[in-house]
């Protein structure tokens, strides 16, 4: 889950099964989460 090229590379190496998780940051009104998001780039 995350950067898709890691999955691409695993498939190129012939790993038996690679499952990609369609992950997105949680959409939330949660103050704590919003605060954490803001810390990334105020």
């Amino acid at each position: 889950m995350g950067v898709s090229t890691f999955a691409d590379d695993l498939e190129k190496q012939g790993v038996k099964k690679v499952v990609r998780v369609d992950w997105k940051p949680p959409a939330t009104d949660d103050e704590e989460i919003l605060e954490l998001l803001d810390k990334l780039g105020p």
Partner: protein
Amino acid sequence: MSVRRLEVRKENYRDSITMLRISNELGKLEGVTQAAAVMGTQLNRKILKDLGFSGPDVESAKADDMIIAIEANEQKFVDRAFGRANELLSTTSSAGVLAKPLPKSLEAAIAQTPDANMVVISVPGQFAKREAQKALTSGLNVFLFSSNVSVEDELELKQLALSRNLLIMGPDCGTSIINNTVLGFGNVLHSGPVGIVSASGTGLQQVSTLLDSAGIGVSHGIGTGGNDVSDKVGGLMMMKGIELLDHDPSTKVIVLISKPPGERTARKVLEVASGCSKPVIVNFLGLKEHSEAGTSCTFALTLDEAAAIAAKKIEEIGTYAKIDSNGKRPLIDENIIVSESLRLSPSQRYVRGLYSGGTLCYEAQVVMRPMLGEIRSNVPLVKAMRIAGDQDFPEGHLCIDMGAEEFVVGRAHPMIDYTLRKLRIMGEAKKRTVAVILLDVLLGYGSNPDPASELVPVIAEAKNLAEQDGRYLSFVASIIGTNGDPQGLERQTRMLRDARVVLEPSNAAAARSAARIALRGMAQEVSVRA
């Protein structure tokens, strides 16, 4: 005439590599002179301003907003670029292009794949712990690429993993090789008898590629993440890794790699290593010996020394046929060192290391400090020499880890995205006091598909700029890669050589050569405080 347009798409997230790909593709469109598709982190907003895109929209963008900025010769090219951007963004988000929709959560993925045994996690740091914990409680091993996870969370995750007899490689783990499969960044290697446990991704890459070029393969390379051997975490995964390799029948020799551990952790790890049934080579960059180490432990000062000692131990054991290695490593050419140093102008004195691998940056300092004296760095050998990575210095030796946190928020790692390194190279080229620029070039899975093509034009421009100013700018580098890597080791080597880059067989050798060129072969009395 140039036309500019900038759009902010609120709360529209894509990972940094997807954004880089989109930026690259938009930049190649007809008439486009500049293209940037980035998330609105502070670092990216600063870069946009430096490129000429400013204004209230940029200022107010947040880290989870997407910014698309295009500059082109005419309005129609700008519009076309935005059209293409929209196309690319719709294909990267939609699972509808596939036959089966992708699971949207880890729980869903695990439910549909009951025989899974590993989760590769590279989501932003503040969400990583929760996901890793879910994975461990479900009985899966974890490769945790994400950084910016707190030490407390890291400790909790590792204790959880140990209680379930699972591996958690990371946080902040860039490279692992398990059962001949590369996780994260890593090179195409032959499998063989050397097992590696490493708190450094690029350190693991350097040792494994050198072994490969000597005809010796790697059984497993277990990444522990950069903080594992701090006293707060206590080397939990390093010790687990040693235990696993000790019991692995295909491993005959074990190599440990990290920057110097915390004192308590060093003792614990060495105690475990000393109790191993197999020879252990310890490379705690700069640590030459330790009272706790038993007779089965041998210390190596540098990464290439660790590889050389491991190779020797394997030959002593004697039961392994060497793999056919036709990747002949070039020898250090003494004449090049002399001719480079002769071309320098008197004002040029300093080495500027611009690194994508943090451990390689550190190793370069270990090698160069006895020769050059104090070196400033954002990953310094001594606290007093610590600087911020983006601080500018007209004088003095510098070694900058451009993969450090201050450079990668909302951006792809410099092993993939060469933008910041290229900008920095041009900045250094303008300085009259800089003699040598020292680089690491990483090949393999995950890395930039063609580093030489990225570097060659900017190296030519930089050398030209220096020449116009009556100076000579020397470039020294090492390529860390194997013949099996997708970028093509031979071609990368040729292109950089043709660009007059001095190429050495290892990072330690490159650092040594860079220092020698800057010193112009003069012996220096250097007094260095230990």
